[in-house]
């Protein structure tokens, strides 16, 4: 049978709804308010919605998603204790109770449970005014804060003595060797794909798709503009790696990204990092600039 064309052919789906409200990202604007006021007062949010002509609910969606945003004025210092999986397994609930007991009545320290700040390596992880640290470090961090320190915590390095076993490059100047070989024609894109396929490498985001096959598919797909996107969003429950990789071995991530672009013919590349924890909190910018000339 043949159906009549009485409904409009429009591409249905979530895509059609994304960007429903035109305009720039509200996140930087919310960050600016929080920076200026220390939190997000209601009047400010209403004014933002009015000026940007965006619904209040869009703002609510953002500020309720990112624990970073405060909708109440801070009572002195805010200590956050992660209650997500890795930390929960390490007994964070108990720690929160203990902290509440200890600081509960002091009035100038507020204890809250927070979502994963991306520091499962030190689980149960804590933050003091958004600065991450170990639970044991909380008193010291509070002390430092009283002294006016606003330094973000150090990026922790865990590299074993002899370097990470996954790094093929022993010396800094050898890095990007595979990419160089690819660019100079020493190895062909087909060889790269072949190697990937034989290695059995798969994506671990959930679907387990074979990487070599994916690269091949994209390479052979017709298209004027291809994008390579590196997802460093640390969102698999109970795992902790993206931050560490970007902090310690950014050159490998970048090399992989660039090789992927060369092999598939992508013209643009980008990476999203850890947005589910704190928006726009760079943990690797300084390091990745060592390969800036390749960009």
């Amino acid at each position, binding site marked *: *049978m*043949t*159906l*009549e*064309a009485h*409904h*409009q*052919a*429009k*591409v*249905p*789906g*979530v895509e*059609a*709804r994304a960007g*429903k*409200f035109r305009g720039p990202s509200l996140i930087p604007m919310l960050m600016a308010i929080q920076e200026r006021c220390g939190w997000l007062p*209601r009047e400010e*949010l209403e004014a933002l919605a*009015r000026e940007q*002509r965006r*619904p*209040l*609910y*869009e*703002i*609510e*969606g953002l*500020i*309720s*998603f990112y624990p970073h945003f405060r*909708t109440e004025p801070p009572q002195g210092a805010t200590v956050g204790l992660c209650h997500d999986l890795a930390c929960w397994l390490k007994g964070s609930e108990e720690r929160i109770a203990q902290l509440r007991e200890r600081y509960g009545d002091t009035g100038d320290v507020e204890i809250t449970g927070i*979502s994963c700040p991306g520091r499962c390596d030190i689980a149960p992880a804590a933050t003091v005014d958004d600065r991450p640290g170990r639970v044991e470090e909380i008193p010291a961090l509070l002390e430092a804060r009283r002294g006016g320190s606003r330094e973000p915590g150090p990026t922790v390095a865990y590299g074993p003595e002899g370097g990470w076993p996954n790094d093929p490059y022993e010396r800094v100047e050898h890095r990007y060797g595979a990419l160089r070989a690819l660019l100079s024609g020493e190895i062909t894109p087909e060889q790269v794909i072949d190697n990937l396929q034989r290695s059995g490498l798969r994506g671990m985001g959930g679907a387990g798709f074979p990487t070599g096959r994916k690269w091949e598919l994209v390479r052979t797909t017709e298209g004027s503009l291809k994008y390579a996107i590196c997802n460093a969003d640390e969102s698999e429950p109970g795992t902790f790696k993206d931050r560490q990789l970007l902090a310690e071995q950014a050159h490998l991530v970048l090399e992989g990204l660039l090789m992927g672009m060369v092999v598939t013919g992508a013209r643009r590349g980008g990476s999203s990092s850890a947005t589910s924890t704190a928006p726009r909190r760079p943990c690797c910018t300084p390091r990745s600039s060592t390969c800036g000339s390749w960009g």
Partner: protein
Amino acid sequence: MTQTNHAPADTEQRTVSLTIDGRELTVPEGTTIWQAAKEAGIEIPALCHDERYDPVGVCRMCVVDTGGRTFPASCIRPCESGMEVATSTPEVERSRAVLTELLLADQPPREEDPKQTTTADNELIEVADNYDIATIDDLFKGPGRGTDTSNPVIAVDHDSCILCDRCVRACDDVQGNDVIGRSGKGYSTRIAFDLNDPMGESSCVTCGECVSACPTGALTNKPINNIPIRPRSELDAVDTVCPYCGVGCALTYYVDRERGGISFAEGRNQPGNQGRLCVKGRYGWDYAASPQRLTAPLIRVDSSYPKGPLSADVKDEAQQSNGKRGRGRKPGGLVPYEEVLPHFREATWDEALDLVARRLGGIFAESGPEGIAGFGSAKCSNEEAYLFQKLIRTAFRTNNVDHCTRLCHASSVAALFEGVGSGAVSTTYGDITNADVAIITGSNATANHPVASSFFKQARRNGTKIIYVDPRSGTVADHADIFCQLKPGTDVALYNGIMHEVIRLGLVDRDFLASRTTNYEELARTVEAYPPELAAQITGVDADTIREIARLWGEANAGVIYWGMGISQHTTGTDNARCLIAMCSITGNVGRPGTGLHPLRGQNNVQGASDAGLIPMFYPNYQSAGDEKARVLFEEAWGTELNPEKGLTVTEIIKSILDGGVRGMYMLGENPFLSDPNINKVRKALSQLDFLVVQDIFLTETAEFADVILPASSYLEKDGTYTNTDRRVQRGRKVFDPPGDARVDWEIVQEIAQRLGLDWNYRSPQEVFDEMVPLMPDYANLSYDNLGSEGKLYPNPDPEHTDGTVVLFDDRFNTADGLAHLVPAEWLPGKELPSEEYPYVLNTGRLLEHWHTGSMTRRSFALDSIAPRAEAYVHPEDADELGLKDGELARVTSRRGEIVLNVKISHREARGNIFIPFHFREAAANLLTIDEIDPMGKIPEFKFCAVRIAPVADRVSTTVGGSAS
């Protein structure tokens, strides 16, 4: 010829072929699997999907097997060529069953489910029953997500919510209110209003669209007046039309006959409103059940003469200032029955009707036609309007018959008659979908024509550019591409400036001007003197914006203008409307889809009442009372001689009373006390009438001056037709019998007619309609039968088969020569400019929740709970300067009077302007307004007068209220 509704032209459509459950189908490209299956008669269960909304594919109930790696959601996956779809394999069914079980685990038990225990149509429970899933005890139940009962008529149960997003789409995509989103993440995610505010405190306008969208018990209606909400099958469904505004939404009341009340209302599909309603239509119907309904005829007792106002609020200052007012009663609200009723005694119908006939007949005998006048109402049906004007015109041989159209669009109608030969809209509100550019001006459409505004907002999301021109930044401004906040009363200057620029840019439609208009040269000469810079100076809109609007408008393929009372309620109202007609004419924007002129009509039947002849200068169908041919036609039809003199308008009648002209009046459903400008003058006039009969459903302020009060029927108690702003004639159907001895209006009019010696014997409104149609060429071919359930647009050459004419004037205008007559206008300042003593400009208007003098809406539980009090809206900076605080009392004073009311700080006002809604008798805005009128439309300047405002220092002893000065 005119254009009628037809399907959009067939465009080349690519198709794909596939099989679903073994059946071979060919569907247009882009069709989803779910849709294709449905049309082939295969039902795929769905929860988040509903054809009213764009699919989002979030619940996965509709998954099917396409042979791929995973099961795609059929509601969102387009059909592909060669696809083989299986909709119900055991794996697919298992996936759905597991999903149902997981969803059900967090639901409240079914005997407590807010939907299952009311309308009993919880879609999740239905799916669960299909999969034989009863109770679930082996699944971990998450922490509760709470309930929210802050809205007076809508209950939120977050535990019942399955986050299907239907309410979000209903609120955003259908109604354009943009209130609901999600808050939080993970397990505790829930729907949220604004900044996760209680629904009742959020910007939600209680349109109820989300309730009608929700598949579960998460969003449900609360019972109103203790009439429980029950399954539709146990209730009596009455298909009728909303009694409130000119949008005329079709709806169904579900009536509980056992308890004698309405259980709930639902939008009904009709080409105009397409099932949508606003808060008034969906929740505002309980006024008819108010215990304050008049149920017996009342006659003023002898001791209450000489006549005058009876309640404290309606009395004048001298009586008020000695501390008598209030007398322990809480300030504000409706006419205090206990103060007014003792001045009347109950009477039989015969006694009351005889008295009316004797007194009005007596005055007519003494003073002739000049001594009598009648005010009908735009709330009454076409049949009632027709009978009422026929009574006044034939029994009293006078054309002194008018209604509140005088107070809203008379000037628009005057300009339209002069320009295009017809006062009706040239296209519908829904036709905005076909426009590239729409100008919405002088209309707070989101409040006053809510459902029409939802189509405006929707059109913009689909690419129509919206230019909003208004001194107030109403919610329409949030949805406009260009918001042009002009100074009040400068419309003519603005449009002249725009036209100047359109002409300069050469964007006029030469062919249209040459073949379809007259007097262009004159217009061009006039607007020549209004370069954008000058217009900018007058209007306060910057010249670049004026240029941008001119370019957009001039270049539009299809442009349409919708306007409201901000255009008409000025002393320059007719000129304002002339400019809009010229705007459309010079660019050829009339007579094609997506083009035209649409004055948004206020009352549900203001179009119909005018059509039916409830205006002093016209017989039914706008046949001029001054025109010999028309008079003869009606003299023959009505078998009596008619008065060749034009009659007086509302404002002129009031004046005539004071001058000793009009002595006896019949008021049907009209309350001029609150709705007319300069209340003090009205008060004096009403007290002076020799005889006043008021026919209404409640005691109104006007009824305090009556000699006889006749208890009438509400909209819900009678049959009749109503004509909406689109020219759609629809049938309203009786829901209940009138309470007590109250009677339906057309019968009362007929009783009086008979007592005045007229030979009237109508047995039903239908008979009246059948008499009207042959006298009203525009209504030709219409009958009760062919109006059907959706009504029909007029003119309609073939109502059996078509919906009627959407676009008028496609090849000629209604004027005698068939051409549009352009009338240039010079800008004139308002009549009462701000001065040092009265530095602010007062603007008046309506609120979304209220209707005119509030006699209906303030008796509705929902509407009164949402907007219970009178407020003056002030810009935050003005408020700062004046020391006004939100919620505190202020005194607003004009040269005519003063009122005390609460301050509302509002970003929507411009600096220097104050807005006061006129629904509240305790702070009646029309004590302040000026009764200057437009010379042609005779419409009062409600939108512009000078006032001052100051905090009320002594807050304790002051109550909300007003007085004359």
